[in-house]
């Protein structure tokens, strides 16, 4: 069955970079909503709301560029885990019911990036010459 996919493994660093960039841009979007009301404004919140917004903007930009990928992904994975357990988990155990589906997916994408880095296309690799 898998013979068709033989040799695809060598492209996984490129695909990882694509996944990283898409997830980071989506993540950035939530921060932009909180601070500059783009693409749509969210209602103003307490201090925690803006701290989270700062993490989303800074982390989203750094991860999209692939700069200091592992430390940034580590912080963001932890951030999403906290968000899940403080905001979503109290509503229901099941992600389909508590609205925390995306938070889980972000958390685990970032978690994986901590282990493998930013993939083929990243500033870490191009500019800082580190993995």
């Amino acid at each position, binding site marked *: 069955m898998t013979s068709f996919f033989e040799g695809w493994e060598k492209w996984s660093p490129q*695909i990882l970079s694509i996944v990283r960039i898409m997830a980071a841009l989506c993540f950035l979007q939530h921060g932009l909503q909180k601070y500059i009301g783009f693409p749509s404004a969210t209602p103003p919140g307490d201090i925690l709301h803006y701290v989270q917004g700062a993490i989303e903007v800074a982390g989203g930009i750094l991860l999209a560029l692939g700069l200091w990928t592992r430390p940034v992904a580590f912080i963001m994975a932890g951030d999403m885990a906290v968000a899940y357990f403080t905001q979503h988990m109290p509503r229901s155990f099941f992600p*389909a019911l508590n609205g925390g*589906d995306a938070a889980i997916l972000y958390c685990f994408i970032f*978690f994986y990036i*901590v282990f493998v880095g930013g993939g083929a296309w990243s500033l870490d690799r191009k500019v800082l010459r580190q993995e």
Partner: protein
Amino acid sequence: MTSPFAGLERYAPYALSIVRIVVAASFFEFGLEKYFDFPGPAHVDMTPIYYVQGIIEIVGGFLLLIGAFTRVVAFILSGDMAVAYFMIYFPRSFFPGQNGGLSAMLYCFIFLYMVFAGGGAWSVDRSILKQE
């Protein structure tokens, strides 16, 4: 900067399996909702296309959870989520934060990665079927 993370690469296949299992379990849940109203009632009006989608979610989610035929299954699920995104969510808005398609997009890309990277260290593919 990366020194605390040096050597983590070695554990990447295990991390990938953890990601695969959690994501598949979460995906599986949406199929259960459509057919068994568990853990809650379905989010959508159950037109025939959603019964088809429910089968994809149950069968695909389960196979990916145990890691059987990972790449083939992930390929189908990734395409499925791409279609869902462009058919259901994209017409509402360009931005995933607004059109409700954020999860669909993230699922799509995670599955896409698994087409290329496989199911990681812990999978039926590797332990029983003896294939990568």
